[in-house]
Each structure stands twice: as structure tokens, then as C-alpha cells.
């Protein structure tokens, strides 16, 4: 009897255990399935997180630097693979960019926003800002899409921009003729720079001196109808067709220096900001069909003595790179200091500035003078002797020599001559 009872009890326990086991197993499986699903979802999410983290790392790794002088004029009107028309239909510019980052960069758009008088560069009523998109063929407000990719570490990569011919980036703002150029990448980074660059020496202001504005003087009074290019009036060296003006710029744009003995019109030179371009009465207009024997160009550079001792600037030269291999050079004729012109070197006190005036006598490139497109970069080679405190066998201190030798990269020294529809004998 007791055996039967025990047997029955065992059977009942087995059934109960099985049922309980099934229930527990079901619950466990349900929970496990849920866990698997949630884990999968979390994995997917984590994958997205990782991808976006990697993406953001790449974003932060982008680093584009624009190389001085920033924008330059391409040497040819025909751009292989993109088209022709630079200098005639379009104003073309090369933006020289280095990719210092560790990832490749794709440029998606470029904005150009100009300051200055209305209508100059990319300012109202011209499109403001100018929006340049990549194109496969040359077009207004575009950049060459073949240039849009920069490899990691790639240096001096040229990106070619095209604007309508009527939109010229230099503008006649005598103060700070600036264009803000914004480069947008496909990862959403924005790199911008101002152009023209400020004049710098060795990429930065120097301890001994720093240079500021550079201005250009045209010889004579600019009674340009008769302006021969060599001062005075009545000549016939080349032809301007705009109406007679005391100088080819509105009031405030030109700076009159007097007492420049032996130069200009009875010692008077009118210096203009080199960014002076454009139409209306401010333009220096040239009949491009004329042959010219050349004219005289004066350039001054503002030099500041940021040292602690006085020094005497002496003879020097200026050498401008003009249209690639062409050069324009001339000597330092003197300095303009404290309102006076000194053919011989005055003593420049610490903390003061002066104008170092250079003269380029024959200014002929091709068959006419000053055939210079706006924006073409110029390199000024400033001889060691130009501003040292010694001369001849005594060239001065080594510090002075090193400070004052070198290359000044100008962001764009140009004088624009435009063909005129008017007559020009």
C-alpha cells in the first residue's frame, strides 16, 4: 500500500515539475528573446553612434589653409578641362589652398563677400555674396569641379574660380579693400580668409619693422588726355580717354606728396591705393590698341620702425614680379618722413614710420604699359641695403640685414587699364 502511494506521489511530482519547468522555460525564453531584440537594437544604435563619432572625428580633422597671396590670376585664359574665357568673359582667380588635415576634403561651395563701395566686387547691386558652385565647364559664379578634392596633406592646391567679367574682386576702397572668401566643405566645415592679405614679411610682422600700406603714384598731374607717362602734359606716350582730372581718382582716394624734389610734376606725386580699379571717372583708361613706350611708376611702402633704436634707411631696390617671369624693378629714391622728402637717409626714430619711395622708370610690358590684370600677385624683393643702418663696406648689423632682406608678398598690386570706347588718337 505504501509503495503504491509513494509511486503515485512520485508521478504527481513529475507532472508538476514538468509543467513548472515549461512555464519557467517559457518565461525565460520570452525574456531572453526580448533581451536579444533589445541587444540587437542597441548594437545597431551603437553602430550608428560609432559611425557618427568617426564622421565627427573626420570633421574635426579637416584643416584647410589658404596660401599667400591667396588669390592669383591664372596665366592662361584657357583652363584645360574647364574652358576658356578668363580675362575676356570671366574674371578668373586661382585660390591656392593647402590641406593640412589628415583627411581628404571636398569643397562644395565658395562664398565671396566684398566690402567697399556699392557695386565693387561681390557687393550690392552685384550679387552679394557671390556664390560659387562647382561646375564641369567654365561659367560665371563657379569654380572648377575638378579642383574640389584635396588629398590629405596636399599642399598648394589650386582651385580655379570664375566670376563674370564685370565683377572684379579688387575694389576701390582706399581703406581696407577686403573680400571675405568662405570655403565650405562637404563635412560642413567653413574656412574663410580675407583677400587681399595684409602685407607681411616672412609671413608675419617683424620685430625690427613692419610694413603697412603700399601705394602707387602715377607721374604727373593726370591730365590724362595728354599724359605721356613721364610727367607734365603735352606728351604723346600713350593715351587716356577719360576726361581731364587732376588725378584719376575721387577725392580721398589719392594722397598728394609734395617736395619730392626732382620727381613728378614739380615735385608733386599723387599716390593711389593700388586697388583703384573700375569704371566711372576713377578709372585709368587705356586704349589697348595703342603702342606705348612706357611710363614711370612710383611705389611707396610704409615702413614702421618697431625696434628700440633709430636707424637710417639707405639705398635699396624694389623688384616686382609681373606676369610670371616678367619683372619690374627700380631703386629707392628716398624716404618721406615727418612730412618731408629725404633723398638721403634720415634717422628714423623708434616707433615712427616713413614712406620708402621706389621708382620704376620704364614700365613696359608687351606693347603697352601697365598691362596688368587686377589681382595678379606681386613679389617685392627688398634688398638688404634698402633699410639698413649702414652702407658700402659697412652694411650694418647682422640683425638689420636679416630683418630687412627678404620677400614681401603683396596680395595684389595692380593698375587696371581698360579699353575705352572713346576715341584715342
Amino acid at each position, binding site marked *: 500500500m505504501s509503495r503504491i502511494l509513494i509511486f503515485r506521489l512520485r508521478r504527481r511530482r513529475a507532472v508538476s515539475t514538468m509543467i513548472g519547468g515549461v512555464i519557467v522555460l517559457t518565461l525565460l525564453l520570452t525574456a531572453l528573446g526580448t533581451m536579444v531584440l533589445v541587444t540587437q537594437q542597441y548594437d545597431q544604435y551603437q553602430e550608428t553612434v560609432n*559611425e557618427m563619432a568617426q564622421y565627427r572625428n573626420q570633421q574635426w580633422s579637416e584643416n584647410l589653409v589658404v596660401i599667400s597671396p591667396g588669390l592669383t590670376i591664372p596665366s592662361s585664359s584657357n583652363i584645360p578641362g574647364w574652358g576658356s574665357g578668363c580675362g575676356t568673359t570671366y574674371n578668373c582667380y586661382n585660390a591656392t589652398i593647402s590641406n593640412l588635415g589628415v583627411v581628404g576634403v571636398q569643397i562644395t561651395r565658395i562664398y565671396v563677400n566684398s566690402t567697399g563701395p556699392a557695386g565693387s566686387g561681390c557687393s550690392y547691386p552685384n550679387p552679394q555674396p557671390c556664390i560659387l558652385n562647382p561646375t564641369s565647364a567654365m561659367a560665371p559664379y563657379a569654380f572648377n569641379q575638378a579642383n574640389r578634392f584635396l588629398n590629405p596633406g596636399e599642399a598648394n592646391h589650386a582651385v580655379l574660380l570664375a566670376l563674370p567679367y564685370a565683377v572684379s574682386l579688387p575694389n576701390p576702397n582706399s581703406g581696407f579693400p577686403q573680400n571675405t572668401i568662405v570655403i*565650405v566643405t562637404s563635412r560642413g566645415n567653413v574656412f574663410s580668409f580675407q583677400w587681399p592679405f595684409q602685407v607681411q614679411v616672412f609671413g608675419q610682422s617683424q620685430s625690427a619693422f613692419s610694413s603697412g600700406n603700399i601705394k602707387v603714384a602715377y607721374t604727373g598731374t593726370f591730365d590724362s588726355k595728354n599724359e605721356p607717362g613721364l610727367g607734365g602734359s603735352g606728351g604723346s606716350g600713350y593715351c587716356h580717354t577719360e576726361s581731364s582730372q587732376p588725378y584719376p581718382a575721387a577725392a580721398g582716394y589719392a594722397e598728394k606728396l609734395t617736395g619730392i624734389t626732382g620727381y613728378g610734376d614739380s615735385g608733386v606725386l599723387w599716390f593711389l591705393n593700388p586697388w583703384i580699379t573700375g569704371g566711372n571717372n576713377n578709372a585709368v583708361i587705356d586704349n589697348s590698341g595703342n603702342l606705348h613706350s612706357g611710363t614711370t611708376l612710383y611705389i611707396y611702402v610704409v615702413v614702421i620702425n618697431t625696434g628700440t633704436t633709430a636707424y637710417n634707411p639707405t639705398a635699396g631696390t624694389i623688384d616686382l614680379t609681373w606676369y610670371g617671369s616678367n619683372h619690374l624693378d627700380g631703386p629707392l629714391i628716398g624716404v618721406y618722413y615727418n612730412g618731408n622728402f629725404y633723398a638721403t637717409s634720415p634717422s628714423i626714430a623708434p616707433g615712427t614710420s616713413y614712406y620708402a619711395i621706389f621708382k620704376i622708370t620704364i614700365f613696359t610690358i608687351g606693347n603697352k604699359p601697365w598691362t596688368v590684370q587686377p589681382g595678379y600677385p606681386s613679389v617685392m624683393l627688398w634688398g638688404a641695403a634698402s633699410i639698413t643702418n649702414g652702407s658700402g663696406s659697412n652694411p650694418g648689423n647682422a640683425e638689420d640685414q636679416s630683418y630687412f632682406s627678404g620677400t614681401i608678398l603683396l596680395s595684389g598690386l595692380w593698375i587696371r587699364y581698360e579699353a575705352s570706347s572713346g576715341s584715342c588718337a
Partner: protein
Amino acid sequence: MKRWKSRLGVSTVIANMIMISITLSLAAILVAWAGTSYGAFTGGTNVFFAQRGQALQENFVIEEAFFVKSSNTLDIYVRNVGAIQISVVAIYVNGTSISGSNIQTGGSPPLCSLSTSTNPTNLVVQQVCEYGLTVTQGNGVVRGGAALCTGQTWCTGSLFYIVVASGRGNQAAYTARGP
């Protein structure tokens, strides 16, 4: 004795059946409850991770902003640099929502408008959209000093803090200074 035993056997079977039924019922309820709960949990996490994932994939920037004096507008360019399309649902300037007639339309290429439930608009990947924002005293963006702001409704040098919000809750900000 035999009867008693017999009664006892019937009672045991019935009791067992009752117990099994109760147990199974409770188990069914428990499993159903667990399934529903876990299902809801799974669905909730699915939606959560999906939304978070999409929000993470969003990435957009205000790449340029400039003032148009002729129309007293502040034009901004928004680019989608993320991995999925986005919808711009709100733009704030100095904490004031710019919407309705204060978002300019027309132009060439046409200006973009905000995405709404009735007019959903999306920016696909790498698309850039220009929004023309009216910034005046009238809509509360420019405050005070109108006499000092000759020629335009904004004061030269004043700051404009622009926030663009997407439908997934992301924001891009930009500070522009009045010219």
C-alpha cells in the same frame, strides 16, 4: 474503507485537475503579461534607438549668413552635411521665432520655407537651402535704438544669434554681426 478510498481517489484526481488548471491559467496569464510587457519594452526601445540613431545621423550647418540692406533681410544658407535628410522646422533669431510672412519666399534660385505638417519640405544630403529672414523691430528681432540704425532696421555692429532647429530636435547656431 473501500468507499472511503474510492472517494479519496476521485477527490485527488479532481484536486489535481483543478490545481493544474489553476496553475496553467496563472502561467498563461503570466506568460501573456510577460510577453506584452517585454513586447512593449522591445517596441519602446526600438523606437527610442531608431529615433536616437536618426537624430545622430543628422548634421547640418549654417555655412553663411549675410544681411541684405535693400530688403532688410538676413539671408542664411543651411547645408545638410549629415547622413540622412532633414527637415527645418523652426528658425530663431535672438530668441524670436521667425516664421510665416517673416520667412521670405520667391527669388532665384527660390528661397526655402520651413517644413510644416501641411507642407513638409526636406533637405536631402548635401543640399543647401537659402532662407530669407525678415529682421525688424516689428517682429521683435531688432530691439530698440531704431534711431541709431539708419538705413536699415538693424544696428550696425549688433549681434544676431541664429538657431536653426530640425524636426528631430537638433540645432545649428550661428552668430552674425550687423554690417
